[in-house]
């Protein structure tokens, strides 16, 4: 879909998913890396746990459908080569500290001189300006400042983030939306556009109904363990089963079925069936109307039902009966989930050590312009000659200068 467009990716781990989204959607993505490589190449997890060159799985995860060019932007030839690429590009995405690119003469103003129709996207923790613009940040501190942490965890311990970094990924997919919105604006105005993406605000969005809670209802939501907070009621979602945990949202028709099954299993007496209008039960609870069985009794009953059954038994039985009981998967369960296999979701990627591994596939199935992985993540500088030679027409000695690899 985006095949007419070229994206220059100057990001590190804070923005690599942004350009990958555009690349997966068809754009030609040229990853411009310093001679030492993107910092994400030195981030774990590593293949075979070996922190060596070309072994970063962090890098491998978010750099498919890209070509890698090394440019030494400290040198004049490197900078000249970058500007030549900018002339041919439609998008630039960078994730340097606020103002750092401009400080090197490589910011938006310089780029729009080179290409008056460029869309320039900058990803930072807090935005380009403002009182916190220069705060050092990490995934954890952005999860804190963005708010979602305040909602997660059990009340008697510290609030928690998701244990795997998410902030830069949210910022990155936000940046891909910002890039395409600004591109649509550029088409209307014929003017270069600058998009300022803040990871903090991207994280705020992940609080959903929690973010504006205080201004609307006059009080915050607070962390309450693995529950969903519906009005004044906390419904526990996670229940322990024979081989792990399942997530059940016991409302509506699903609750009625669960009550039926509990009666069949002898967990509760038959009079439960008629004691309540079960599909409407949660509304009564929400409105604090009198009920025959309290929500705690109902949740205990659900827990008793799942206790001796496996995740997979519950999933399959629920699927057949229209009650969603979701296994709490670890990566092993996930990679064995039959549904994904039958949809042909997984791809097999050639890894840098010569082995192969199952990796997440494309974002969605499109009939007109099918998405695909056209290239696996590049080795550092794999396409320097191809891009600088064929696209820009540089000689081999000019390429060596620009890429920071010296003569020969």
């Amino acid at each position, binding site marked *: *879909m*985006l095949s007419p467009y070229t994206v220059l990716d100057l990001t590190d781990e804070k923005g690599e998913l942004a350009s990958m989204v555009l690349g997966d959607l068809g754009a030609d993505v040229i990853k411009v890396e310093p001679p030492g490589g993107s910092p994400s190449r030195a981030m774990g*997890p590593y293949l*075979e746990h070996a922190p060596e060159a070309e072994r970063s*799985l*962090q890098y491998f995860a*978010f750099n498919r459908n890209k070509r890698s060019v090394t440019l030494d932007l400290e040198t004049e030839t490197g900078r000249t080569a970058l500007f030549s690429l900018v002339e041919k590009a439609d998008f630039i995405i960078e994730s340097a500290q606020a103002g750092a690119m401009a400080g090197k003469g490589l910011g938006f103003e310089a780029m729009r001189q080179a290409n008056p129709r460029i869309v320039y996207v900058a990803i930072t923790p807090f*935005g380009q300006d403002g009182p916190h613009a220069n705060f050092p940040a*990490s995934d*954890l*501190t952005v*999860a804190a400042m963005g*708010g*979602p*942490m305040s909602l*997660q965890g059990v009340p008697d311990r*510290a*609030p*928690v983030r*998701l*244990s*795997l970094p998410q902030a830069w990924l949210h910022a990155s*997919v*936000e940046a*891909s*939306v910002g890039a*395409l*919105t600004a*591109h649509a604006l550029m088409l209307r105005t014929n003017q270069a556009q600058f998009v300022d993406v*803040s990871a*903090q605000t991207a994280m705020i969005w*992940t*609080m*959903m*109904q*929690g973010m*504006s809670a*205080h201004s*609307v209802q006059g009080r915050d939501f607070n962390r309450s363990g693995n529950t*969903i907070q519906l009005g004044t009621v906390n419904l526990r*979602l*996670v229940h322990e089963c024979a081989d792990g*945990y399942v*997530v059940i*949202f016991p409302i509506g028709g699903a609750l009625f079925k669960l009550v039926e099954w509990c009666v069949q299993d002898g967990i509760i007496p038959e009079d439960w069936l008629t004691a309540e209008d079960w599909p409407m039960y949660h509304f009564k609870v929400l409105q604090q109307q009198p009920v025959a069985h309290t929500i705690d009794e109902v949740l205990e009953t659900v827990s008793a039902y799942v206790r001796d059954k496996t995740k997979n038994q519950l999933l399959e039985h629920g*699927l057949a009966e229209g009650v*969603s009981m*979701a296994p*709490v*998967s670890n*990566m092993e369960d996930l990679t064995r989930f*039959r549904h994904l296999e039958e949809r042909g*979701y997984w791809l097999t990627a050639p*890894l840098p050590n010569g082995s192969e*591994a199952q990796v*997440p596939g494309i*974002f*969605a199935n*499109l009939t007109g*312009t099918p998405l695909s992985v056209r290239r696996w993540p590049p080795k550092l500088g794999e396409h320097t000659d191809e891009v600088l030679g064929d696209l820009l027409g540089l000689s081999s000695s000019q390429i060596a200068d620009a890429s920071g690899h010296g003569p020969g």
Partner: protein
Amino acid sequence: MASSDKLPFDGVKIADFSWVWVGPTSTKYLADHGATVVRVESLSRPDILYSLGPFKDREAGPTRTHAFSDFNTSKLGLTLNLKTPEATEIAKRLISWTDVYVESFTPGTMAGLGIDYEVARKVNPSIIMVSTCLMGQSGPASAFAGYGFHAGAVAGFYDITGWPDLAPDGPWVAYTDVVTPRILSAIIMAAVDHKRRTGQGQYIDASQLEMGLQFLAPQILDYTANDHLTTRNGNRSNFAAPQGAYSCAGDDQWCAIAVESDEEWAGLVKVLGNPGLATDGRFATNSGRLQNHDEIDAQISQWTAAKTPQEVMRLCQAEGVPAGVVQRSSDLFEDPQLAHRRMFPQLDDPQVGPVPHTGHLFDIRGYDHGPRSPSPLIGQHNEQILKEFLGMTDDEITEAVIAGALE
């Protein structure tokens, strides 16, 4: 507000038959930036968000929930009871009017209503149709209906959230619902650009599980390539220490601190004012700090206990150590950085009055943008849509009303 002829998606038409989170928040981006988005609802099947809070002043009621109004800004409201044949005919006219047709029901629902992709492309050959659901349109679990809580559990987000010695906590929100709309919105924008250039539409099957898994890609690889399983670990990192949320002065107040390098560790030692930490060989390297995390945490907690989280953040930041207050919704409204970005513009909601809404998460310089109008009331724009967009006559509209098609 920019002049109307300069909005990015001005002229793009979207028929939004989706509901709850993913579909409506995906089309919100296009609506806020100029597209004409008709949000189709039915009184016979009200959006589930109407029963979810937060409610204005904690008074429950379908038009008082911010969960709906914050995520349907800049859209027009149309009611159609698709169980009536008259409404199906109006839906087909809407489908021939639109560029993009979005739905988020269980697979097969639109076919049952007589408005699936086969029908849609007959009445509009260049249409872009988007179906998004938890598991995708095909496969043995395609009928798995539910929420982002369920898809988040299947994906693995529950297993990696919480404490290692406790049951999984899970993200507070229905997590795939916050991962997928941005990816889906980018896909729709790319499809709209492709249609603009080529005239070609298409059908898009977007599984929320499959989009969500992109956010676990490094850890999936760690398992498939290395046979290594990652699980929940509180706030600790597998790669750098110390990291955590530390208890501060006040009622349930916390500040997150994250050290990722030797330089940041040196900065933290300086902040803590404990020179013994600097000379203790156990803490000199990152691997040493990972091994002695509990002891370092005790030192940090002792230092933070009597300070406000803002003070802890300020002192750490002054030495180049990443630190951030664990902010609640109330803190977000006091955050000077967010005020600077005008994060929460007030919109005058016709039902509940002025309420802060979530503004744009990215900022396009020189383009003063934000939600253009509050979310529509149910059926608020029926007449405008039926007459102006679909060219229906007063008699046709009256017949539709009598048939119950507009309920």
